[in-house]
């Protein structure tokens, strides 16, 4: 059975459970949302913690500013809203109030990528990585599964920093195991190989692993990297891949203009290493379709990843 077809988990469930655990242990933990109590999965949090959930209504600019103010009084705010509205509507607040001001706000882009499927491009968050990458002083984190989601949240409460974190809705299988540690700014090698590298994030990590297994059947050795940290970017691991394999494919549920693929290409080109870096992602507003159908439509499946990787090797 392909990983794509396995039963997976909605990271928002792990997010909500972990947020409650963290809030029980640490009174500084609060949540802020924009009427998204339901879609951010915060109903139980509101029941248990009452006024530690601040719902500012449908007002994302104020929401992010409020998050910065809460952080300025020593609290640890998880500011939760659907990715497109958090990063699009409030971009200047993220820039000035969070990144430039260095208020340690944890911005949680819920249901990112094309999770909202048929609701269309207004509700897709595929520009978020490009927009947020342009901001110095802001970490960007895309947990690949429920375990990484929890690890990331614990790390951020222990060491609060201005951070944008995607919290996926599209069900994904576990790609990490209990022994795996999330290390700040480190890209993890989740499968080693020496012919081609696939760097993937979020929903695409399990698909990249599936592609690697298919490629192995054809005698291609594939290195798979989980780039949970889009910023700061682990240049060393990218350069090792550029020197140790003959091509790099970057798979992300995001626009390729300014996304992770662009970041990887910049690192590789800067060193003058002559390997192709092939970004897989979106270049157009998506048509109407379910998340799965749209991933298929734009070529973000294990089959597409394997095909592109093989082509890059001249096979």
């Amino acid at each position, binding site marked *: 059975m392909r990983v794509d077809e396995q039963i997976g988990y909605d990271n928002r469930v792990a997010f909500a459970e972990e947020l409650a655990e963290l809030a029980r242990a640490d009174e500084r933990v*609060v949540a802020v949302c924009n009427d998204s109590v339901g879609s951010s999965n915060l109903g139980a949090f509101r029941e248990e913690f009452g*006024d*530690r959930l*601040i719902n*500012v*209504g449908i*007002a994302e*600019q*104020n*929401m*992010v*500013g*409020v*998050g*910065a*103010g*809460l*952080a*300025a*009084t*020593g*609290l640890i*705010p998880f500011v939760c809203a659907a990715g497109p509205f958090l990063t699009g509507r409030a971009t*200047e*607040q993220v820039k*000035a*109030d969070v990144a*430039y*001001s*260095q*208020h340690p706000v944890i911005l949680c882009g819920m249901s990112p990528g094309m999770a909202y499927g048929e609701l269309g491009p207004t509700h897709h968050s595929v520009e978020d990585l490009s927009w947020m990458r342009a901001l*110095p*002083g802001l970490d960007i984190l895309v947990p690949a599964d429920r375990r990484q989601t929890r690890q990331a949240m614990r790390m951020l409460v222990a060491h609060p920093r201005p951070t944008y974190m995607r919290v996926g809705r599209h069900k994904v299988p576990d790609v990490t195991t209990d022994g795996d540690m999330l290390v700040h700014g480190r890209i993890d090698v989740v499968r080693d190989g020496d012919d081609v590298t696939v760097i993937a994030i979020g929903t695409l990590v399990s698909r990249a692993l599936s592609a690697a297994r298919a490629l192995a059947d054809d005698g291609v050795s594939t290195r798979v990297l989980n780039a949970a940290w889009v910023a700061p970017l682990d240049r060393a691991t990218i350069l090792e891949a550029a020197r140790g394999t003959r091509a790099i494919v970057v798979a992300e549920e995001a626009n390729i203009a300014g996304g992770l693929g662009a970041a990887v290409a910049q690192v590789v080109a800067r060193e003058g290493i002559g390997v192709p870096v092939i970004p897989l992602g979106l270049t157009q507003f998506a048509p109407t379709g379910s998340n799965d159908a749209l991933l298929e439509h734009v070529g973000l499946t294990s089959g597409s990843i394997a095909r592109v990787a093989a082509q890059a090797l001249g096979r």
Partner: protein
Amino acid sequence: MGFSMLTADIAQVDRWRALRDQGAAGDEADRVALIHAGAQRIRRSVVRMIDSARAGHIGGDLSVSDILATLYLGVLEIDPAEPTQLDRDRFILSKGHCAAALYSTLAECGYFSRDELGTFMAPFSALNGHPNRTKVPGVETNTGPLGHGLPVGVGEALGLRLQGSSRRVFVTTGDGEMQEGSNWEAIMAAAHYGLSNLTLIVDRNRLQQGARTEDTNGLDPLGERLAAFGCEVREIDGHDVAALLAAVAPSSTGKPVAVVAHTIKGKGVSFIEDRVEWHHKVPTAEQVVLALAELGEGA
């Protein structure tokens, strides 16, 4: 981020503390005179800074000076020697382009040495054209784009209340800035949450960069609008220190307080007052001398 932060001038902190205590101990007239003198020092400092940088926003700096002097010499519970201690009142200058007035005020309190004011907008100076909290102690959040200070102030007021603190939050916006929708989002939330520990002061000088506010996108009746959004509104002369002191008294209704401080852009310098072109015009050397004289230099 690796920026070097300015540090407190302890001797100046002591002078500021003595002045503040003197004001608190004296009768109303003495207190008002002391704060008014502070505001005039801030204004003279602003003129010198803008002269040396050959840039700045002189009109709004001069209109907001009495508000700043009143808060920092008469109201705020702060310790400039320990600027990040959590148990403090907070002030946010949302109209960040009036940084020269804020820096002059912070230096008056000893957050950093007054010598630094001479570096205003110089290459690599901590004193950027808009305030940066990672470089300048006493700056609570970075402002510059308009409509940012009040949402952050709402978050601070909520955060303080959640932690059981009785400290208060003050935000000063420009009046043109009230055209930004984010301010009204923030006011709605402040009223909804009953943030009686939050005070908004609008520097109502009736001019924005390009024209009169009422000829641009009219704000009147501003007080009624703020009241309709759920604020306890106080309309005063923003250059009357006694009125300012009364207007920033705690909420009496449980609502957030909104002070509409009617001011004159360029206040204190006759040829700058109420003239739209002085939003960010820089005075000539001759005008600097005239301005400083009108502001009581050497008096």
